[in-house]
């Protein structure tokens, strides 16, 4: 049985376990129908030209873990931003771990999707927001919708800001030979509210993991969302991240994506600007080696006038790694005075590494500023010589230059401890100890 068939037959069993009277039931039914029709995307589709899911579909994934698995905090502490106090929503093999988590209902709701989807008190929010910005057409998103049951639920009411950042962590224990996970997150930030979120997926063994995640983010007027995705998973883990963001007037949403590991990572990051004076920012640092593959597909849809979007993705590709950047910007006819900026710079440090980069601009308004640029290059030999002439060995000199290349993406990380952590990850990824914390 291939993965598609297995998923469809599992859906029946899944639905038997959830509340059929819940309105979400109909949403799931619609979604599985769409997935059944479309199946997994193939390389024939333009959006999947450079990323193949063929080999993944041949793996016999467990759709549900057979049993509840536990892990000790000391074994996974290093994956938490433990230097500071945070709220934590932690899942082990897709199942909520109350032991590792720290949730709250103190003025804000930082808790579980499973609760939000079933308890009456959350119904008003679910009715308004659940599955409202996520695509009803894109097959992998609808696959996730069909199986949506668990994930993070974050609701920040008007004028509120949680006392500390929120970490969403997904661990895979490897107790299943191969496990498929489908977390579903909903984040609602009301008027003038603010939130900082860090998301991470981490497999603890070398068993295969496939995560197909969907996150919906709603930022109301003047809302501020800082979202950080740390993708540094094991070499056998694959991640398809589908993030949909709906912004209202004067809101500011920034998503930083740090892609340092994993077998295959696909980021579908979609912004919809439903208001004026909106700021949408997407930044990314990708550092890959071995045969790793990362595909960044971004979309910004400028629907209203006077908005801005900024995209800045830096990639460093070594060994036989492959990268894709596809940045789509749509400016509607009414969206005058749009300022859309897109930049994708890449360094190939191996002859076998490849990057496919493509800006895709569809502009229907006539009074807009849209700039885009992509570069693919090697390290600057003169700069390398400069560092070496100061006594810094070639390997360390190269690392310093790569760090400098990626640096401006890090400048906008607003949590200093997170920035320090990412700097360390970069140094580790580049295989150097520079004698100071970058």
């Amino acid at each position, binding site marked *: 049985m291939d993965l598609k068939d297995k998923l469809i037959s599992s859906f029946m069993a899944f639905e038997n376990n959830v509340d059929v009277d819940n309105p979400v039931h109909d949403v799931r039914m619609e979604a599985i129908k769409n997935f059944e029709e479309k199946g997994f995307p193939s390389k024939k589709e333009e959006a999947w030209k450079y990323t193949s899911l063929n080999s993944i579909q041949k793996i016999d994934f467990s759709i549900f873990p057979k049993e509840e698995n536990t892990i000790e905090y000391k074994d996974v502490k290093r994956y938490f931003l433990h230097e500071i106090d945070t709220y934590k929503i932690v899942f082990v093999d897709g199942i909520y771990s109350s032991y590792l988590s720290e949730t709250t209902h103190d003025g804000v709701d930082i808790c579980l999707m499973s609760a939000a989807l079933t308890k009456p008190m959350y119904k008003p929010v679910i009715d308004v927001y659940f599955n409202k910005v996520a695509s009803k057409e894109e097959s992998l998103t609808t696959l996730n919708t069909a199986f949506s049951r668990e994930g993070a639920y974050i609701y920040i009411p008007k004028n509120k800001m949680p006392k500390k950042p929120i970490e969403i962590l997904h661990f895979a224990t490897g107790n299943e030979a191969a496990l498929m996970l489908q977390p579903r997150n909903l984040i609602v930030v009301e008027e003038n509210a603010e939130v900082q979120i860090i998301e991470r997926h981490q497999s603890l063994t070398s068993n295969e993991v496939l995560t197909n995640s969907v996150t919906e983010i709603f930022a109301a007027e003047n809302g501020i969302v800082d979202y950080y995705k740390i993708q540094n998973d094991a070499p056998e883990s694959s991640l398809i991240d589908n993030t949909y963001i709906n912004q209202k007037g004067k809101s500011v949403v920034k998503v930083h994506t740090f892609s340092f590991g994993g077998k295959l990572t696909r980021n579908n990051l979609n912004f919809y600007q439903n208001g004026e004076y909106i700021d949408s920012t997407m930044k990314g640092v990708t550092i890959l080696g071995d045969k790793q593959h990362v595909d960044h597909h971004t979309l910004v849809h400028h629907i209203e006038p006077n908005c801005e979007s900024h995209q800045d993705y830096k990639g460093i590709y070594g060994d036989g790694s492959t990268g894709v950047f596809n940045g789509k910007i749509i400016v509607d006819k009414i969206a005058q005075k749009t300022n859309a900026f897109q930049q994708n710079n890449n360094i190939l440090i191996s002859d076998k590494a490849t990057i496919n980069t493509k800006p895709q601009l569809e502009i229907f308004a006539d009074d807009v500023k849209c700039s885009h640029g992509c570069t693919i290059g090697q390290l*600057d*030999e*003169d*700069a390398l*010589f*400069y*560092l*070496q*002439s*100061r*006594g*810094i*060995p*070639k390997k*360390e*000199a190269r690392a*310093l*230059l790569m*760090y*400098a290349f990626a*640096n*401006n993406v*890090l*400048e906008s990380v607003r949590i200093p401890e997170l920035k320090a952590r990412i700097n360390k990850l970069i140094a580790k990824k580049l295989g150097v100890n*520079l*004698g*100071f914390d*970058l």
Partner: protein
Amino acid sequence: MLKITDLHAQVEDKEILKGINLEVKAGEVHAIMGPNGSGKSTLASVIAGKEEFEVTEGSVALDGEDLEDIAPEERAHKGIFLSFQYPVEIPGVSVTNFMKTAINESRKAKGLDDMPANEMLKMIREKSELLEIDRKFLSRSLNEGFSGGEKKRNEIFQMAMLEPKVAILDETDSGLDIDALRIVANGVNKLKSKDNAVIVITHYQRLLDYIVPDFVHVLYNGRIVKSGGKELAMELEEKGYDWLKQEAAV
């Protein structure tokens, strides 16, 4: 200390240095002058070990050791320093952290432990005062957004920190106003001792009013066509290079 013998070097099959002979002894200051394209910066890069240039004949030796096949960083560890005409910007790495890395890499190569933090701080303070560098400047990203003068001053600060045996200053005077020139020259003079040597590469005599050379060499078309004392620099300032070109052509 530094001995260059019949040095020929080329880049992409184009010969740029065509037989340079130069001996620099400890305690000496040498100036190398010459028109554009004569090979001055190439000579500096070849001494510092830039791989782009291929040495086809002759040698560069430091304290009797031939530097052939020795990487730039190892040359730095052995005491060669090159102040760049165009220093490179390294965003995200502060001047202080950069110097820590450079100094500790050099110590590592010599089998020494990292320099203790307090010692490092003391050294940074002393050397930055010598070059009238503001403390805030040291926490800025290396060369990023520095003015031309700040970059050059920072180069000499690095020289002060690394304490080389042979320092080559490549067009250190270009882009400097008179005040910055005085500070940089003053710094170099204070760093000079009987145990080290300085090679000043310049177009103009101006810098040599402040860093007074023991010897002046004129490089033209890949060769040293004339050597003399500091008065040669004055002569060049007055007469230009044309008379030497004619002399060399004969």
